């Protein structure tokens, strides 16, 4: 029992770390650091899954932790770095709004999440904080996507959202069948790869990976 | 006798025209032609050849008959000396106005038929005047019809109305309508052929000979008919309700007096007024419309 309680606070601690890594995105100016923040985020995520696996002793969660580490912690960062290198562009993030404002809004988002996910929602288990944090991470990921000009950062924002989603998934459903988890992972991986392909296409077609150019279709 | 009361209008209408002319001349200090002059005119015209424009169609030739026949038919509906008119089932005062309209319609068409500017001008002005006159005339008749509870002229005449404020208003409107309808000063000048002023004459410009005679005669008849309607509706006192010859005779006498009074009134108006500009017509005809409207409103208010 003691282990359990201890572990609880550990889980909270790690999830707070995940949130911080997401919030940090608001302040980062270079693409490489963003990729690094994402890597950190993914590692923390797989660590968390591993701890949960240890707690309930489910084998398939170990597998999930390993797969997460491999795909999100290693494969995707590598893939992203390659794209960034291929692009041969300025490595600035080029946000639309100032860092301070960005941070403030992120804070508001977190507050909104905490305010709206009220007590009545939680029916069982230990995951109250984790759910709130994961939703917050998702929203911050989305917010990053909204406020950053570069296509690559959009993908990173999306990946943050997915990490948030996974966090939510594991905190809410740690009994989910492995095959489905793998399916989701595979799907997302495919998504990222295809997005990467598109980034290169965009670069080729518009001579820029700047999303400001992508406003031909309107009205 | 009652079957032939329309013949009074048919035969006497040129005389009334002659009397008006004579009175007018006297009032203006002229001697003027004799009161039978219109008869002579008609006879003269009937004897003449006709010159017809080659541009015209059958409408032009049919119009005199239609105009004359419609006016004659209208005169059959109107009770002249007795309200026991055998023909009044044919129609009522509304029908009467529309029979007039039929004649006017064809007259206006014939004005356009020859393809001259004068004819068109005459038709255009005639129809414009009709637009202004007809609602006003209708409204003033409505007042009488409503108070008599019928649109049948004989019944209105037979109801023996008393004068009331609304009737006086309606009568004034109706008098103005008659002036406009018969083409008299200040609306139209019957004695001129000056293109800037003529309305009625413009349409008849291409007619000659027998056709002109028919048109003129129909015009005289219409004038007398309108007088008759006015006296029937607004001061029917004295008109016979039966068919005994004595009553008819007295009724005829009273009728002649009334008609002569109307003729005198016309002559007076014509002598004392000047012809007004065509585009000032709406102001007097519109004024008459207001009079008719007021008569209706006062009637409704007072009967309440």
């Amino acid at each position, binding site marked *: 029992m003691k282990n359990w309680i201890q572990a609880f606070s550990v889980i909270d601690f790690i999830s707070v770390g995940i949130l911080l890594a997401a919030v940090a995105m608001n302040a980062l100016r270079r693409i490489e650091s963003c990729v690094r923040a994402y890597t950190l985020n993914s590692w923390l995520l797989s660590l968390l899954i591993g701890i949960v696996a240890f707690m309930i002793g489910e084998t398939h969660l170990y597998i999930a932790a390993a797969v997460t580490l491999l795909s999100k912690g290693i494969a995707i960062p590598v893939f992203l770095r390659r794209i960034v290198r291929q692009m041969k562009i300025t490595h600035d993030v080029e946000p639309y709004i100032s860092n301070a404002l960005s941070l403030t809004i992120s804070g508001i988002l977190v507050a909104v999440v905490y305010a709206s*996910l*009220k007590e*009545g*929602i*939680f*029916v*069982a*288990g230990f*995951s109250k904080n984790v759910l709130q944090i*994961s*939703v917050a991470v*998702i929203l911050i990921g*989305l917010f990053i*996507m909204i406020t950053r000009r570069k*296509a690559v950062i*959009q993908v990173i924002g*999306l990946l943050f*959202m*997915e990490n948030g*989603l996974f966090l*939510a*998934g594991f905190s*809410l*459903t740690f*009994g*989910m069948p492995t095959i*489905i988890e793998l*399916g*989701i992972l595979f*799907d997302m991986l*495919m*998504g990222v790869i*295809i*997005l990467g*392909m*598109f980034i290169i*296409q*965009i670069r080729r*077609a*518009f001579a820029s990976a700047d999303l400001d150019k*992508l406003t*031909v*279709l309107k*009205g | 006798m009652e079957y032939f009361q329309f013949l009074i209008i048919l035969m006497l209408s040129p005389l009334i025209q002659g009397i008006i002319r004579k009175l007018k001349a006297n009032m203006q200090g002229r001697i003027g032609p004799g009161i039978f002059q219109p008869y002579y005119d008609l006879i003269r015209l009937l004897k003449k050849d006709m010159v017809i424009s080659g541009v015209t169609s059958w409408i032009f030739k049919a119009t005199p008959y239609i105009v004359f026949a419609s006016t004659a038919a209208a005169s059959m509906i109107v009770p002249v000396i007795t309200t026991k008119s055998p023909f009044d089932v044919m129609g009522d005062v509304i029908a009467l106005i529309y029979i007039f309209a039929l004649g006017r319609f064809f007259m206006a068409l014939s004005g356009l038929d020859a393809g001259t500017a004068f004819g068109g001008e005459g038709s255009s002005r005639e129809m414009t005047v009709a637009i202004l006159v007809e609602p006003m005339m209708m409204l003033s008749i409505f007042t009488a019809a409503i108070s008599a509870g019928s649109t049948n002229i004989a019944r209105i005449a037979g109801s023996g109305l008393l004068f009331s404020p609304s009737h006086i208003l309606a009568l004034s409107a109706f008098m103005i309508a008659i002036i406009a309808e018969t083409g008299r000063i200040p609306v139209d000048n019957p004695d001129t052929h000056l293109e800037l002023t003529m309305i009625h004459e413009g349409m008849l410009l291409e007619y000659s000979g027998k056709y002109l005679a028919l048109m003129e005669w129909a015009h005289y008849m219409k004038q007398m008919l309108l007088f008759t309607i006015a006296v029937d509706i607004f001061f029917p006192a004295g008109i016979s309700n039966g068919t005994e010859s004595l009553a008819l005779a007295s009724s005829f006498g009273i009728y002649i007096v009334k008609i002569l009074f109307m003729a005198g009134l016309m002559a007076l108006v014509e002598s004392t007024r000047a012809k007004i500009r065509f585009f000032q017509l709406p102001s007097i005809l519109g004024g008459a419309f207001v009079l008719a409207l007021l008569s209706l409103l006062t009637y409704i208010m007072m009967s309440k």
Partner: protein
Amino acid sequence: MIAILLIPVITAIICYALKNHKLISYMSLIGVIILAVFSIPIITSSVSSPIISLNSILYMDALSGYIMALVILLSLASGGYSIGYIEHELKIGLIDITGVRRYYALFHLFIFTMLLVVVTNNLTVMWIAIEATTIVSALLIGLGFTKRPMAIEAAWKYIILCTVGITFALLGIFITYYASTAVLGTGGVLNWTTLKAIAGRLNPATMKLAFIFVLLGYGTKAGLAPVHNWLPDAHSEAPSPISALLSGILLNTAFYGIIRFVSIVEPSTGSNFTGNLLILFGLVSMGISSIFILVQENYKRLLAYSSIEHMGIISLGIGIGGVVGIYGALLHILNHAISKPLMFFSSGRIQAHYGSTKIENITGVLSSMPLLGTLTFIGVLSLAGTPPFNIFLSEFTILKAGVDKGLWVAVGLFLLFAVIVFYGMLSGFGKMLFGAGNAEYDNQKIIKAHYTGSDIFSYTIMVVMAVCIISLGLTVPDFIDGTIRECINVLGVR
């Protein structure tokens, strides 16, 4: 059932392997025909009683059967139409043989993903399938097919927005799972059948949260405003047969997800919550799309906005609920799935003929191409909700349901938006259809060149669709009526 899933995959592989474009196209056609033949018994049996197979991962009831029938019918139509379309693209050099191979392979994969959506029992598998449809169709729009930058832009926006949106849907599914754990004790479930059974006992507050996420997520995919923004871009830039599929069924499969979810959420939260949200989304969709339709200058985008409008109507129908409301919504899904593809097919023809998607560049279609013009006109009137065409019937059914519930505001707004849409559609397409044929385009040779064998085939398909539009406007056949009734039973609506 597994055969049905396998056939498109196999066809896709074969198509990719072949090298001759004629061969590929006929192979593809044969593939969809076989698929159709195989599916008939399964669909009919699923309508009468639900089928469960493969360890209860696959599950089909009347609703799945209904949507699957639409998927397959449209695949047939679109597959047939593709032949002529691709031939034309090949001729004018917009595509090469590699592109053709890719196109057909992806086409069948696309069908596969959509079939997967409807046959699965598991909410997460359904989610995966829906996400897969996004990826495959984004490739169909943007990669290796047309070489225009606009298509890439559209595909990029499409994939980003839909992925973001659908992420929320997955979150909603997790929350549902979470709610079910509380009811079932230990492990939760994601099987639709199980969830339906325990739906009444799920925690309302949790389910509300879940529904919000799912509605937003699948709503993005289904093109509900204000999260519809990918739709006009993707629909207008995709090849016409793909636009037809996107609009005709892809949106519906996403909506299928919402409908399934509603039937789970409703018993616990009460129908007001889901209903009001759906009505709200429906009306906002109709409103926004109607305004955009009014000022649209590009006819393919106009059609895309019309899809948003119709999704709004379906949403409204589901939201109003009750037997009549759901009936109307399901009937509307069918009707829209016939009319909109017809319009995309015919606009593909117009685009091929005039080489423009701008309304102002096109005039006198009825004079220069009477048959195409007439078909387009029927489609326009149908989409504008005019009797005696099919869509009026379902719209009126939804209206009736709204009145039954006394939702006067919704009914009034519905009619207002419908009138604006009518005006917009008619003024847009009226300019194209009527007027004298442009002499430049009226070249008889061009017209003649269009009636090759595959063109006649495409026209046949379009005529059949037009006939369906008219006949469905006059009467709903018993088997369709019965199927929809069965769907309503399955959803447990009284």
